[in-house]
């Protein structure tokens, strides 16, 4: 028993160190980021209109470059990321956003991982806890009824 307790303590201590480290590490972030970083962040959420499936931040095409310039100009003029995104949506439609805005039907793809995890955990629990399959010899209720019927029939036949 003491062996197990010792292992437990060792592991618990290790987990504590990791948690503490994570806490310390995440405390150091924050701040606005440079202009370039903010352009990149907004651009990463917009789809490049001419190349297929790349973001404005990543795309090497000239139009994407000009859109990045446009974003930078708007940031300098003091507009917020939401306003800048709205600017593009007004012109290109919601298609230009690489993450579907979370309203209406669009909630479906966002819900899938959450619902999936819940369903998955439920399935896992259900399967792991399932007991006594039929082959173990236990008699289920329906079988019980069947047997009773047959017994009844036998009795009737005398």
């Amino acid at each position, binding site marked *: 028993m003491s062996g197990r307790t010792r292992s437990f303590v060792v592991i618990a201590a290790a987990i504590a160190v990791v948690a503490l480290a994570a806490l310390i590490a995440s405390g150091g972030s924050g701040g606005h980021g440079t202009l370039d970083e903010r352009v990149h962040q907004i651009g990463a959420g917009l789809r490049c209109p001419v190349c297929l499936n790349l973001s404005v931040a990543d795309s090497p095409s000239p139009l994407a470059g*000009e859109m990045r310039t446009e974003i930078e100009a708007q940031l300098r003029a003091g507009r917020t990321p939401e306003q800048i995104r709205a600017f593009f949506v007004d012109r290109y*439609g919601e298609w230009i956003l690489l993450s579907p805005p979370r309203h209406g039907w669009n909630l479906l793809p966002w819900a899938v991982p959450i619902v999936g995890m819940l369903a998955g955990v439920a399935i896992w629990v259900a399967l792991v806890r399932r007991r006594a399959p039929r082959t173990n010899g236990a008699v289920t209720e329906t079988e019980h009824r069947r047997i009773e*019927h047959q017994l009844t029939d036998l009795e009737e036949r005398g």
Partner: protein
Amino acid sequence: MNARIDDTDEARVDEGVEPGGGGRSRRRWRTVALVLAPLVLFALLLATGLGRDPRELPSELIGQPAPTFSLPRLDAGGTIDLGDLHGQVVVVNFWASWCVPCRQEHDALAAAWGRYRDRGVVVLGVSFEDTREAALEFRDELKGDWPLVDDPGSRTAIAYGVFGVPETFVIAPDGTIAAKTTGAVTYEWLTDEIEGALRAGNVE
């Protein structure tokens, strides 16, 4: 003994047959149907994607006021300001020398220009992602004569939500965007839209 009421298929006893035989078969089919139903739905969903062009996109700007611009002329000096053209029907055509459909639509644009310029309709070509030399070469080769402007930084193209070329917008006399099309325009489309915009302008 007969008072027992059974409500499950499996409990029904057939003469001489293994108990629950008929019920098992029906239950099988029910399981099968339950499993197959969502799959059929899935297939139908995918089927809706057939016959659609994945690249075609609706326009957001129809009915909205046309974004203003003041762009330098390519074929002459000075600038063209969209505000100056208020009250006229303006056909804004985004094009480039490297774009093959732009060649194909050139005649349609020229014909529309020829037919409607006397009624105050302006055809305006906006160069997209192109060099001045290549653009002017294109003009010289195809011999159009409507005004051309350059779009430095593609700010106007972005303002109009342009995905690629050619894209053509018809702006009504009240300054709103009456129509938009992507790909090479046809003479029919141009005349339809220009006539419609002219009518709308006259009503006011």
